[in-house]
């Protein structure tokens, strides 16, 4: 597997400008002769499809939803970072770059991150021009807040619905291109596989989710903006349909999968209320600005929160991290919560949470002020739990939320398969081992609006154009394989539902490859996953047929892929014999209990090559170099 990141020469601040200048261009009147497929309509995919439509390419865009506006980017709450320095508090492109590299615990590419910080400026301009209603000050200028422990205020937001508003801006731009005839939209089409012809990505195979029709669509380049894989854990904050299928099928066709074990757990989610629950709800991290996190000092204390006196409460983040306290980074806050719950200090009916208490904030600020700041979140919490957080403390617990790993891409966002691009959460490029708050939206839009539309053009300028149609033998083979796989799922006719398998897989991955990992646990997972996969294919029950709308069949295909993918994730966690960012190996911990990196041996991205289900995958490495941000140990004491 060849892994050339193709990072441009020159000083870091000039690399992107230089790259753009070096790119080969396509004559505007010729662009429409090039067909590009975009899969996914979230911030990355939607922005890319709209922008390439504007540029004049023949764009074909696919989503499994009933409308492109449903993509999971819509659920993002907090905000989007940009180095605008509108607050005059000393922010700069370099500082955002620096914070992102450091926050990623030195496992990302400097050049990519610098470009991301640079483009953050254009994103805000673009979004405002589209009519995204960001929060404003009374003077009419854009408002900012500090977010996720950043020491400058660089986060732009639209109440608690920043993702929704950015996605609607992007969706509207896309609908405009559909209206212009520049983009052809395929709703309710699930991508099942990628078609490779002569070593290049030349199309995809889709299943129409209402008619069941499986067909090939051919193109000159294929772009995957299909999101992350947190649902491998079954319970996560991701929308129910989020899955790994498109990027995993690409990996099975030879695309390298980078750093699959880098998964982020978000500390403030509402704990599960029972076994029946299949989706967790995130509560904005902003709550930690005023809420105090605690558990009873005594394990197994089942008194009501109000009956536990002050002296018997452990405000553990304030105790352990006096300077950051309740605002300690996501991975640290998550791990401490899990350790205490595991040790019997958990609260709530299932003893599966910690308290996030607003009693002191209400005393200090008054109920009105708290309501003004967090009213919608309190209301949301009450709707879900039936408890009033003004009078009893909220209960929270960490949950899988975002995945930093994804398809390996070079500086141009192209995978090692020529013509196959990956953008947004689907690639691995910018967040290293840990993503900072309010940076996911930034990356999706930077990739989609500003990077990919140019780099795809550069590729197309020298790539073969046309000459393949859906009758091509390579396409027919993939259609046949897709059909056979579907028939196998329908024919299994076992006794267990798809969900029951997904739940069991999720538990294995959560227990052994979740917030904390160790050698023996990962080996145990690598033993149990293949067993479960075997049982899945033998005993899964998928009712109905493949010829109509069959939601059990859709889920079954996605879970089948998670069953294979989970293994590569555990391999990655096992072989990365260090801790870094969100990857916490219990064997490698500093005296302070934090992730202890091993830069001598692991200053690289790990890129996996699939060798067949049940076969040991091959690990490749892309070395990383840090010239502008000196390697250092994170400390939040």
């Amino acid at each position: 597997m060849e892994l050339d990141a193709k990072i441009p020469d020159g000083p870091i601040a000039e690399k992107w400008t230089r790259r753009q200048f070096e790119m080969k261009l396509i004559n505007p009147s010729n662009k429409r002769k090039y067909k590009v497929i975009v899969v996914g309509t979230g911030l990355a995919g939607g922005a890319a499809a709209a922008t390439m439509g504007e540029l004049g390419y023949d764009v074909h865009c696919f989503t499994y939803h009933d409308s492109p506006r449903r993509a999971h980017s819509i659920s993002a709450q907090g905000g989007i970072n940009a180095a605008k320095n509108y607050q005059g508090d000393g922010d700069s492109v370099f500082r955002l770059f620096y914070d992102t590299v450091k926050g990623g615990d030195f496992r990302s590419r400097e050049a990519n991150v610098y470009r991301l910080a640079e483009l953050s400026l254009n994103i805000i301009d673009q979004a405002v021009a589209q009519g995204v209603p960001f929060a404003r000050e009374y003077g009419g200028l854009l408002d900012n807040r500090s977010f996720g422990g950043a020491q400058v205020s660089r986060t732009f937001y639209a109440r608690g619905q920043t993702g929704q508003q950015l996605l609607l801006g992007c969706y509207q731009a896309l609908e405009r291109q559909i209206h212009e005839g520049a983009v052809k939209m395929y709703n309710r089409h699930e991508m099942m596989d990628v078609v490779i012809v002569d070593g290049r990505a030349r199309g995809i195979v889709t299943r129409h989710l209402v008619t069941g029709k499986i067909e090939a669509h051919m193109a000159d380049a294929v772009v995957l903006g299909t999101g992350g894989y947190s649902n491998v854990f079954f319970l996560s904050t991701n929308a129910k349909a989020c899955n790994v299928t498109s990027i995993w099928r690409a990996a099975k066709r030879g695309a390298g999968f980078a750093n699959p074990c880098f998964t982020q757990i978000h500390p403030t989610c509402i704990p599960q209320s029972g076994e029946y629950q299949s989706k967790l709800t995130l509560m904005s991290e902003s709550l930690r600005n005023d809420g105090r996190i605690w558990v009873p000092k005594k394990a197994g204390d089942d008194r009501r929160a109000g009956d536990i006196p002050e002296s018997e409460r452990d405000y553990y983040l304030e105790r352990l991290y006096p300077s950051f306290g309740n605002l300690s980074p996501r991975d640290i806050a998550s791990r401490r919560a899990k350790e205490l719950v595991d040790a019997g200090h958990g609260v709530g009916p299932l003893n599966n949470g910690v308290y996030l208490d607003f009693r002191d904030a209400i005393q200090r600020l008054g109920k009105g002020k708290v309501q003004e700041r967090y009213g919608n979140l309190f209301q949301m919490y009450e709707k879900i739990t039936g408890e009033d957080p003004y009078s009893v403390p909220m209960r929270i617990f960490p949950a899988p939320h975002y995945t930093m790993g994804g398809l390996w891409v070079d500086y141009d966002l192209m995978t090692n398969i020529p013509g196959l691009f990956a953008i947004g959460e689907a690639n691995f490029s910018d967040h290293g081992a840990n993503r900072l708050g309010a940076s996911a939206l930034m990356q999706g839009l930077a990739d989609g609006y500003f990077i990919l539309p140019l780099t795809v053009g550069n590729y197309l300028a020298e790539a073969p154009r046309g000459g393949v149609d859906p009758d091509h033998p390579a396409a027919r083979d993939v259609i046949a394989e897709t059909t056979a796989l579907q028939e196998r799922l329908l024919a299994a006719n076992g006794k267990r539902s798809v969900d029951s398998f997904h739940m069991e897989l999720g538990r294995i991955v959560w227990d052994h490859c979740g917030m904390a990992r160790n050698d023996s646990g990962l080996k145990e997972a690598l033993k149990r996953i293949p067993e479960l996969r075997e049982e899945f294919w033998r005993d899964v029950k998928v009712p109905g047929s493949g010829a109509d709308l069959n939601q059990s069949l859709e889920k079954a295909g996605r879970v089948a892929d998670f069953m294979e993918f989970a293994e590569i994730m555990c391999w990655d966690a096992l072989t990365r014999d260090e801790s870094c960012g969100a990857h916490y190996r219990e064997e490698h911990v500093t005296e302070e209990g934090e992730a202890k990196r091993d830069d001598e041996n692991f200053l690289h991205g790990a890129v996996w090559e699939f060798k067949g289900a049940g076969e040991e995958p091959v690990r490749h490495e892309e070395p990383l170099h840090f010239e502008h941000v000196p390697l250092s140990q994170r400390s939040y004491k």
Partner: protein
Amino acid sequence: MKLKLHIWRQASPQAKGEFKAYDLDGVSPHMSFLDMLDLLNEQILHEGGEPVAFEHDCREGICGTCGMVINGIAHGPEKLITACQLHMRTFNDGDEIWIEPWRAAAFPVMKDLVVERAAFDRIIQSGGYISVRSGSAQDANAIPIPKEDADRAFDAAACIGCGACVAACPNASAMLFTAAKAAHLSYLPQGQTERLQRAANMVTAHDEEGFGNCTNHGACQEVCPKGISVDYIGRLNRDLLKATLSGVEVSTR
């Protein structure tokens, strides 16, 4: 809790649908309404039947995918939430619950509780945007926008496109959806250039999709999970009148 459910089952867009009754035991009051349907589907699966098809995704009230009429009310009896945010503690042991899809000519039923809402996308295509190319924008702070206007724009932009307004309207009108988008853009300075054209195009597209006219019932506002106000419909109608009087030509295709 033990429930008696009456659920609309329809095999395909062409098939004739009907209510089917199901008994469901073991429902926890902490379950969400969709958790309850998951439980029912698990039961149906083990009895050898085909699970009830229903759409859902984020399960936190923002994606707009889920939607069903519960006991005659779009998204169910609680105000300002979607079906996925409804919890079973709202119901009592022994309750009978009737569950059916959105019903509107412009939203054909695909299967069971799943309807096709692509008509909404086509309304947006006709003009629900500001025409700006990627990379052509000026600095974001170059146009100050009074906070009040920005907040109003946001209130309208909060629409999640679920279609409850259409399901609740006796005329199956989508004017609340259409007006919310038009209002979002018309409160902003960036949205002024295309304002009248947008109003004319979007209302025409709305009518062409087969949605009914607004006759001021206000049922849409009552069921809207985001509390979108019917006042926006008046605002859109004023823009439409201005467009007509100033001779704006409609171009939806």
